[in-house]
């Protein structure tokens, strides 16, 4: 049996983990610098593709070609996401059901972007084991529908990974907590990540993890908290500085990153200060935890109804829940913890790092599949009801939500016109009565039906949801016993041919090699310093002597010349030199800003009045 790794493909960060044969415990594989988290960010630069930390550093510099939070677009149609596209700096277009991201003169699909992240994790694992890694368990939010799961599987294929199992994130987390930390009984897993929210209710007994019910929202997470803070800051900047930055992609990325950092600090502290240098002014703002709680209160509140529905679906009351487990970075927010505690009436567990617990659980599931663990069994459910559209657009439910998977349903179909040889089926997922309010999964065309009077053919169609939560359909004409041919037209997915083509093309998006990457990084750092110095000279150039100014200008010119070469060491050296030449200028400006703050006059005004 070949090795199988566990991968958490997150909205904000991704990780890869495995079970250590010696200890029997799951562990995360770090990168060369010892970092466990790989930011799920991909930057398409003229010099090559960057992934993770280096890509994240391109967010402000190249907002139009640096893709983040792509998980929110996976398996989605344009209609699903159009309302939030105005917040994304890169361009997203509708294209044959799915969406595509415009990168210069090329277009990439969300699974291709995710594949670049997966490939980077695959290479990280291969370097760690010093052998090829070809199989993986990949996690998805429990509330992901069929299209979103399929898109995740496609991403694996494009990355050269056989995704042997798709596992739900909250369920994976419960596996990571496992038998050592969970007593037999009912467990609630509350999983609030960067872009998605899930709640799962499980019964744990004698090594069996049986999911009783799951609910959630695949479009709610820490990203939305950041967005609420950014909108508030935009208003504040308009009031205090008289400018609206909402249409400035670079400024918006600065604001988003600063808002995220402030949110994280406020999970540990009551107050924090935000300082963002813009071209024309530097923005300072004191923020209290209460400010952020006021902004995100409605969002946190909206996670509570799914918790109650999941409990009701499981036929349980909050008092039946023995333990509550917190998963996802957003559960570090104190307000979230308070609300979860209120809903379930229990102090939640959080011994395991909420960023790593899903990947650790994926590794456990991988080990089960590889035959390394035989005493644990995971019984998961399908999160959404599966149905077919019938006359008048009404949905007839074949498999209700929260049915344990794998599961199958059989249904009989016939023809309505004499001599009809083709029958169309429309399969949907969701809880609404009308097909148009549900999620369209696919249209199936059953062809090759023998021409007969209407109503005579008996076509038996079997709908099977496998252990990945993905639908498979088979059809048979009962009178002739012939297998009917099925053509699937996925509403929001890639065809097999698309995926095969993307596997071929994926090498064009291969991550730049180490040397190239370091050069891109060096140039990037040079660009950042050049921008900062130009900004500093505009705002505070008058604070230094002409002699000092001359020295800075000279260092500036030298760095510009060095940047044009391919010599990484030279670029580094000149970047450091320019930094040193501007140290004094930075000090003087900081002094001025502090005086401004003390004198209740804004730093930017002081600098502008110089």
């Amino acid at each position, binding site marked *: *049996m070949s090795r199988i790794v566990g991968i958490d493909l997150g909205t904000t960060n991704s990780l890869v983990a495995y079970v250590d044969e010696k200890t029997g415990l799951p562990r995360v594989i770090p990168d060369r610098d010892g970092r466990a988290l790989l930011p799920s960010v991909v930057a398409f630069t003229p010099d090559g593709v960057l992934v993770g930390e280096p890509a994240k550093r391109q967010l402000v510099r190249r907002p139009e070609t640096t893709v983040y939070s792509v998980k929110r677009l996976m398996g989605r149609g344009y209609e699903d996401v159009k309302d939030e596209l105005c917040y994304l700096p890169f361009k997203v277009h509708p294209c044959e059901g799915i969406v595509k991201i415009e990168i210069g003169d090329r277009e990439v699909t969300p699974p291709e972007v995710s594949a670049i992240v997966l490939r980077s994790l695959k290479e990280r694992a291969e370097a760690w084991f010093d052998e090829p890694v070809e199989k993986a368990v990949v996690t998805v939010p429990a509330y992901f529908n069929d299209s979103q799961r399929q898109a995740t599987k496609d991403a694996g294929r494009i990355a050269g990974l056989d995704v*042997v*199992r798709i596992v739900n994130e909250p369920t994976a987390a419960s596996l990571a907590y496992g038998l050592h930390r969970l007593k037999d009984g009912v467990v609630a897993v509350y999983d609030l990540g960067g872009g998605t929210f899930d709640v799962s209710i499980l019964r744990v*007994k*004698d090594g*069996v993890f*049986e999911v009783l019910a799951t609910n959630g929202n695949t479009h709610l997470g820490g990203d939305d908290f950041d967005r609420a803070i950014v909108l508030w800051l935009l208003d504040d900047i308009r009031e205090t500085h008289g400018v609206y930055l909402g249409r400035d992609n670079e400024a918006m990325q600065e604001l988003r990153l600063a808002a995220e950092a402030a949110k994280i600090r406020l999970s540990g502290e009551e107050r924090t200060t935000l300082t963002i240098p813009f071209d024309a002014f530097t923005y300072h703002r004191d923020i209290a935890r209460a400010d952020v709680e006021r902004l995100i209160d409605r969002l946190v509140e909206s996670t509570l109804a799914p918790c*109650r*529905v999941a409990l*009701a*679906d*499981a*036929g349980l009351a909050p008092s039946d829940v023995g333990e509550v487990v917190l998963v996802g970075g957003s559960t570090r927010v104190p307000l979230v913890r308070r609300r979860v505690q209120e809903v379930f009436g229990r102090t939640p567990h959080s011994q395991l790092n909420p960023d790593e617990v899903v990947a650790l659980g994926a590794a456990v*599931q991988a080990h*089960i*599949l*590889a*035959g390394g663990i*035989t005493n644990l*069994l*995971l*019984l998961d459910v399908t999160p959404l009801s599966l149905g077919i559209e*019938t006359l008048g657009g*009404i949905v*007839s439910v074949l498999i*209700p939500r*929260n*049915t*344990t*998977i*794998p*599961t*199958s349903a*059989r*249904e*009989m179909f016939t023809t309505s016109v004499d001599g009809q040889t083709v029958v169309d089926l429309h399969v949907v997922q969701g809880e609404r009565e009308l097909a148009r309010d549900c999620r369209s999964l696919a249209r199936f065309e059953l062809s090759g039906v023998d021409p007969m009077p209407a109503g005579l053919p008996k076509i038996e169609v079997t709908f*099977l949801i*496998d*252990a990945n939560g993905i639908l498979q359909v088979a059809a048979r004409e009962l009178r002739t016993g012939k297998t009917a041919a099925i053509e699937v037209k996925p509403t929001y997915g890639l065809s097999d041919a698309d995926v095969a083509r993307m596997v071929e093309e994926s090498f064009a998006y291969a991550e730049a090699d180490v040397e190239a990457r370091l050069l891109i990084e060096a140039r990037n750092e040079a660009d950042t310093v050049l921008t900062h110095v130009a900004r500093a000279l505009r705002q505070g150039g008058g604070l230094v002597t002409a002699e000092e100014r001359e020295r800075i200008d000279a260092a500036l010119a030298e760095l510009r010349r060095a940047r044009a070469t391919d010599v990484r060491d030279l670029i580094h050296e000149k970047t450091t030199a320019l930094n040193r030449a501007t140290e004094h200028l930075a000090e003087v400006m900081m002094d001025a800003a502090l005086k401004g703050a003390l004198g209740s006059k804004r730093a930017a005004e002081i600098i502008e009045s110089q």
Partner: protein
Amino acid sequence: MSHFEVFGLPRRLAVDTAELRRKFYALSRRWHPDFHQAAPAGAQARALEESARLNAAYRALRDPIARVDYLVRLEEGRETREGADQKPKAPPELLAEMFEIQEALEEAKAGGLDDAGRRGLGADRDRLLARLHAEEARLTGPLSAAWDASAAAARPQALAALKQALATRAYLRTVIDDLNEALGEQADGHVTHRRH
């Protein structure tokens, strides 16, 4: 193979659910695809099929009302869920009362609800909910026991009683859902049994 046969049970409505769960877990350990990942394709397909059958059987039998519903279909030889989506008809003894409630509902839909109308519909809803619970208790209690105890000759009668009670319950559920909707309330607060 019927769902009862999957668990080696007779066609009876009295089921020890703790024992059923124990068997379900044991059979899952045998058939779940997780444990057949490295098996040849044929064996994998078999595991998938058995596992799907097992899950369907457990779902049909674990809940006492779902169990009755399944038994009725099994006894009548209905494999598919034919007619499952038809709106349930009002049982004759409820007709008069339902007529009034339907009228009030129509009014509410047409022109909004004043406080008195709201209170009226709320009281109707609570009364029907009590009746629903009573019907469910009758279904899973005496009617189920009557089926289990009946000799072959008395079975059609016992089955008809179960079927009638299921229809009454389905009808009440629909009207209660309509009332909840008119009142703008979530039905989820009133879930007493696992949905099926």
